[in-house]
């Protein structure tokens, strides 16, 4: 009789350890996913000075646009905390979009290989940032599910596994993008 009890206790203990470890692994994946986002953001910041120099070579008098980009980049690098960073990221995206729109008017710039490569790299980086966020949210979902589903939520509660927030789209990015071609008159708006 005692053997049965020992057996049951042993099975329960193993199950407990397994569940705890699973929760830990899921939580760690979230942190890894977050640093992946960070890596891609840094990559983006590192590309920008090169881009600014290339554009300056051909379109030096687009000072406003260039300044906006440099400033936005600095803000993003200095930002601390998720909300500040998200906001700075958004402003930087807008400034870059403006820069590329403006460079449409300079055919020599558009033909420059360096410029094209940088443009492709930045587009690629934006893609990577988006995918990194997507992956991050998927990890948070998996973790939240594990935390809240019935048998595991008991253990999650016992060991204080807190909820992790999703990476939400910034409220500004949901507004229409305004592209100003410098003349101030035409303002194209992409379809919603």
């Amino acid at each position: 009789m005692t053997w049965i009890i020992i057996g049951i206790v042993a099975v329960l203990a193993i199950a407990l350890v397994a569940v705890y470890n699973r929760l830990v692994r899921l939580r760690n994946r979230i942190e890894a996913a977050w640093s992946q986002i960070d890596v891609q953001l840094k990559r983006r910041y590192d590309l920008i000075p090169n881009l600014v120099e290339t554009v300056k070579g051909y379109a030096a008098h687009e000072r406003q646009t260039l300044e906006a980009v440099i400033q936005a980049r600095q803000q993003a690098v200095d930002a601390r905390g998720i909300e500040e960073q998200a906001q700075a990221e958004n402003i930087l995206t807008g400034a870059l979009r403006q820069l590329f729109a403006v460079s449409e008017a300079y055919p020599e710039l558009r033909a420059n290989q360096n410029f094209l490569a940088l443009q492709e790299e930045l587009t690629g980086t934006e893609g990577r940032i988006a995918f990194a966020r997507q992956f991050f949210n998927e990890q948070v979902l998996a973790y939240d599910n594990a935390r809240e589903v019935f048998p595991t939520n008991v253990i999650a509660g016992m060991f204080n596994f807190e909820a992790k927030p999703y990476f939400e789209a910034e409220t500004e990015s949901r507004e229409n993008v305004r592209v100003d071609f410098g003349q101030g008159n035409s303002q194209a708006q992409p379809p919603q």
Partner: protein
Amino acid sequence: MIGFVVLVAAIGWVFGYVTGFGYWGLVAAVAFSILMTWGSYFNSDKIALAMSRAQPADPRAHLQLHNLVEGLAIAAGLPKPRLYVVQDEAPNAFATGRDPKHAAVAVTSGLVEKMNRDELEGVLAHELAHIKNRDTLVMTLAVTLVGVVVLLGDWMLRALWWGGHDRDDRGGGAGAAIALFGVVLLVVAPLFAQLLQFAISRRREFLADADAVFLTRHPQGLTNALRKLQADQTAVRSASRATAHLWIESPLSLEKARGERGATGAGAWLNRLFETHPPLESRIEALQQTTLGSGAFTP
């Protein structure tokens, strides 16, 4: 796949019963089959790349390709696979490698030229989905099982031919009936096993399509790519039957032509059973049935 394993176990049992070798026949067949197929599984990437004469994709010449694959690898949580380019006008792509760490993706130069960024991303997502779902492993298992069936059939034939009835007759009529059933089975089974293998291949293609859309959250990319593939007539030069199941669209000109003609009728149905890929039309239809694919939003 589970059905396949059950079938093989049943055939193994029949073999054991008919020849009197018991389960050792099945064990030996499995061992042999594994020996024959797993060498090529372990070196699947080297073999597939060499067979198609793929060259590593230079990061500067194919910057967009590398950027797309990096992004998708992040989304899938996989290490970035090695990238190769095959010099061929026909747009196509394949993924290979025994596991995600040793994975490689190859695209034809035709694909890079003819697809836009969205479509290229869709195709690459499909290939990464193959890697994520470990389809090389799945297909190797299927091929191994086919091998087991073929071996058992072969051995059973030899055993019966050379008269392996050195045991007591098990009740006259019933024994003979089972022996006859065994013979029929050994003739039909290899064919049936092959059909199962092709069916599994087609299913994995649908699965890869679905997982690709899950990665990109953008079914239009892959759907438009498949439409372009449908319209394109060229067939890949350096493809063979052995690697056919790896490509996104069947590279074999005969399969392609059949798929495009959208042939109907009993003969065509029979042919379709042997195809490694589902018809492009079905794949496009399946993609459009996802809730995102209603076309309600434009990129």
